[in-house]
């Protein structure tokens, strides 16, 4: 019976197994979990789950250029990824070579050229992937711009020119990151859990992306931690959370699924994003986790990348955001 609820099976989390990270947005999955329970109850003695792999023939679809441009105004190396879409079941990435990439600041009219380079990316499985990146390395204390600046992006590839604009927004106030036993709240356990303490800036429509580095590696596809974003201090606009501490589910939505151990390091970064980027991530997250009984209609994620030639059949996908960043870390003793 147990294998049905085993985390390695592919259905979303059954309720109760969520640990200390219950999220309102995970309610549909929670219901799905309840449903799986009921399915078991009805199947009672039969060791049959409610899910199985399905072989589906999918249309290969038309390949499109993906611009993956999440950069910051930090005095640090900035990287942009240009690739093309692959058939859905075709794992891996198809990075492109020979693109030309510039970023421009509209205040001081400076142009920063991003040049092609190689980088090794370590994925969730600790596998190394060679990627082609477009990179800018600051000289001295140089940065792409200051808060409030409007930054343009220009990508030339295969005879097409792709463009976008983004504004560097202010980021939140980050006080500290702590690690403690999960001994209060809803689902108690002996696991060590991380929590950050931080506050939204006063004034509405501040949006943030909270990223976590765990033992020097970015947590990306963590089950509970998949894209931790905040609108003011809460989950969405209109939640009366302006200027307040981040709500608890957001604060605790850092760290690995399996809990922390002595010696681990954890760093939390709060990146400012535009409200549009917030929408992009909301939809992306929904699409990645969509499924089961309470799935919503699948939809493409939006983009803020344009083909300069609006009538060109080559339509780009992807996203451009320039963040301001705050960062705090902790080592588990």
């Amino acid at each position, binding site marked *: 019976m147990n294998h049905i609820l085993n985390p390695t099976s*592919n259905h979303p989390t*059954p*309720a*109760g197994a969520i640990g200390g990270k219950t999220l*309102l947005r995970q*309610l549909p999955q929670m*219901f799905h979990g309840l*449903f799986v*329970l*009921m399915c078991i*109850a*009805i*199947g*009672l003695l039969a060791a*049959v789950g409610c*899910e*199985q*792999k*399905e*072989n589906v023939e999918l*249309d290969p*679809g038309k390949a499109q250029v993906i611009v993956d441009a999440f950069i910051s105004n930090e005095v640090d190396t900035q990287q942009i990824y240009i*690739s093309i*879409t*692959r*058939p859905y*079941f075709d*794992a891996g990435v198809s990075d492109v070579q020979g693109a030309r990439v510039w970023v421009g600041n509209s205040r001081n009219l400076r142009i920063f050229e991003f040049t092609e380079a190689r980088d090794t990316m370590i*994925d*969730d*499985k600790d596998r190394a992937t060679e990627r082609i990146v477009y990179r800018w390395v600051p000289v001295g204390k140089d940065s792409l711009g200051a808060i409030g600046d*409007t930054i343009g992006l220009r990508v030339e590839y295969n005879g097409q020119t792709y*463009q*976008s*604009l*983004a*504004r560097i927004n202010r980021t939140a106030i980050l006080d500290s990151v702590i690690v403690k036993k999960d001994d209060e709240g*809803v*689902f108690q356990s002996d696991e060590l859990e991380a929590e950050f303490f931080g506050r939204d800036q006063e004034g509405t429509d501040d949006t943030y992306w909270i990223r976590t580095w765990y033992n020097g590696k970015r947590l*990306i596809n963590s089950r509970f931690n998949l894209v931790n974003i905040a609108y003011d201090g809460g989950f*969405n*606009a209109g939640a009366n959370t302006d200027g307040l*501490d981040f*709500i608890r589910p957001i604060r605790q939505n850092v760290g690995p699924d399996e809990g922390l151990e002595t010696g681990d390091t954890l760093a939390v970064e709060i990146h400012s994003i535009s409200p549009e980027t917030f*929408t992009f991530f909301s939809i*992306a997250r929904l*699409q*990645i986790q969509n*499924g089961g009984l309470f*799935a*919503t*209609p*699948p*939809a*493409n*994620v*939006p983009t*803020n990348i*344009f083909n300069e030639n609006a009538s060109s059949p080559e339509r780009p996908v*992807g996203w451009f955001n320039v963040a301001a960043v705050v960062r705090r870390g902790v080592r588990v003793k």
Partner: protein
Amino acid sequence: MNLYHLRLLALLFWGCWIGASIGFAQDLKNDNSPSNVNEKVTLSGYVKDAKSGESLTGVNIVIRALETGAVSNNYGFFSLTVPKGKHVVSFSYIGYQAQLLTLELNQNTQRNVELTEEGVELESIEITDEMGDRNVKSTEMSVNRLDMRTIQKMPALLGEIDIIRSIQLLPGVSTVGEGATGFNVRGGTIDQNLILMDEAPVYNSSHLFGFFSIFNPDAVKDAQLYKGAMPAQYGGRLSSILDVRLKEGNAKKFTAAGGIGTIFSRLTLEAPIVKDKVSFIVAGRRSYIDILSKPFLPESLASTQFNFFDLSAKVNWKINPRNTVFLSGYFGRDIFGAGFKFNWGNGTGTLRWNRIWNDKLFSNTTAIYSNYQYVLGFGQTNNDRFDWTSRIITYSLSHQFNYYLNPKNTIIFGFIGTLYDFEPGNAVGISMGERRDVGLPSKWAMEGGVYADNEQKLNRRWAIRYGLRWSVFNYTGAGEAYDLSDPITGLGSITSDNALPRRPINFRQYNQWESIKLYNNFEPRLSVKYEVDEFSSIKSSYNRTAQYIHLVSNTTAATPLDVWTPSTNNILPQIGDQVAIGYFRNFGKDNMFESSVEVYYRWMQNQLDYVDGANLLLNPYLEADLLSAQGRAYGAEFYIKKSKGDLTGWISYTLARTERQVAGINRGEWFPNRFDRPHNLYVVAMYTLNKRVELSANFVYASGTPATFPTNRMMVQGLVIPHNSENRRNNYRIPDYHRFDFSLTLFGKKKPNRRWEGHWVFSVYNVYGRKNPFSVYFQPQIEDPQVTQATRFFLIGIPVPGVTYNFKF
């Protein structure tokens, strides 16, 4: 404005009431005075079950010699006006022994008639070929009547018969998947069905999400499903009306009935309080799946709670031959919990007063309360918790007259007024002692309907039913209203071929009962019947319906958390038009076969749709995430039913499409609805092997539902995001659904002088264990998010056996 409207509405209603009651009563008094030289007299009364005193709906009352007749109404009342003299009147009702009465009618006569149920061992007296001919003879079409005795014989999941699941085997009815809440009628969404329990609207008809319905079959008298050709007294929803009536309670003696099943147990008690005058019925159910499944759950889930219960009760009091009062109530809850609490359910109350003003005028006055609510709560300590409740509360008052003007005209007229209180979410989060109210304010609305409807027999062949309903809806304060801007476009801003949320602007406050937006609609209803011959007829109908409240639901199956919303200044009322034409024919010995073919086309305006990533819960600017689509649905329904003999059952085949179109989805082109199933084949067969054994079987086949599948993947920031390069909605279909069920009912030996009657039901649901897909979805593997795969999600992938013992004494 606000008070004015309220007063106007009230005045209208009371005017209707007073005018109708006094004016008509007087009018009729003159008409019926003994000095009247009119040669006609009226025979009226109630038709009841001889054993229980339960009134019978839909009994055919026929005088063959005159080729005239009547049908008993929802309260068992009938009225038939005939020339003075001696008449042979037949009373027939399916499952009952027909009765022939020879009556000397020289004056208006009130006569209550009792019919006896056909016993298993009783040979029924076949006296009339009128039985079961109502489908041919009456003007009504697109209606299915569910006979509880038939439902009881059908094989059911875990041996537990269920009205809503039985409805899903009728032509024109389908569901998005096994165990999904609600049902779809002729291509309509689930919120376009008005589900009435003793006239009270029910907002969520499901237990356990949709495996069972809230109707306790032991307490239900009958159910009718109107899929079209809606009489004018019904309104408020676009697609269908499911009118479920509860039993009144045995007026003659104490009886108990119940069942002990695999998943829940039932008990119903009914008895007279004062014989033939006051009686009651109480029926309850409680499930125990959580207790049964506990040994099979891992320890972490052992404290999981999931069960449901419901309680229905009704008292009726025959004050005198002219007045009867009914009070009925329902309360049910589904309870889920696993370190949190989550429960939901309906409560309804109905107070009804039937009055016979005279032999031709019958009225029913109803006061209704209905409440659907859910509660969700996390956290055990007062410093850390989240509590969320949501409700929709309805108060209604309605008054309806049935006026049996003469054998050629039956007029129904009346009004209904409803007050809605929508509480989309009262939510409070307390985090380390810090309290945050993230709830939404209540919304208020009033809905009124005034209607009149006449069923007119023009001659032997032609009959026509025409009616008009005028509905009015007033969305009122207290509250905030806002307009919506167009989405902002331009370089750097978000772009999508799909619709995006709009921005709320122009905020304004309204006082309590101040009108924010007023809508009204005229809803004409028309049906025509042409009798080709004794055994066949052609019927056609048109109706318009308006729907002012909407279920906001964007998921494959509706969740109990879905919230109802009124029409507002931004959400327009849904309008539906339907035309249907049908051919009805009975054939075989004693007309043992009923058959029909119906073709329909529906147009639907202002259907709710949603922007990508719409946030539907606790969203103060919900209206900004909604879209208004147009819909169309069309189909043909083939139905053949055998209701006599040892072998009974039906075959139903529906060929249908349901589609919608809205700018911002599927490139603005038409696409199939997610519950679109072109082919639906249902076969239901019941066979009486001998006095002790009955066999029954179902077969269901339905085309797979449409689904949106990705074509490509894109990686952004390490996330693998599905992408459809053509940006299509519902571009694929999941595999077909088919299922075979079987059951065997074993009756105990009948012994005289023993009241106890018991029978066992052994059933197998999904006999060949097909893993019927509910959906196919695409996700990265949890163990390796870079690898994407498709997963079939199914609810019941095995043959499910069930044993139930039912008893009656």
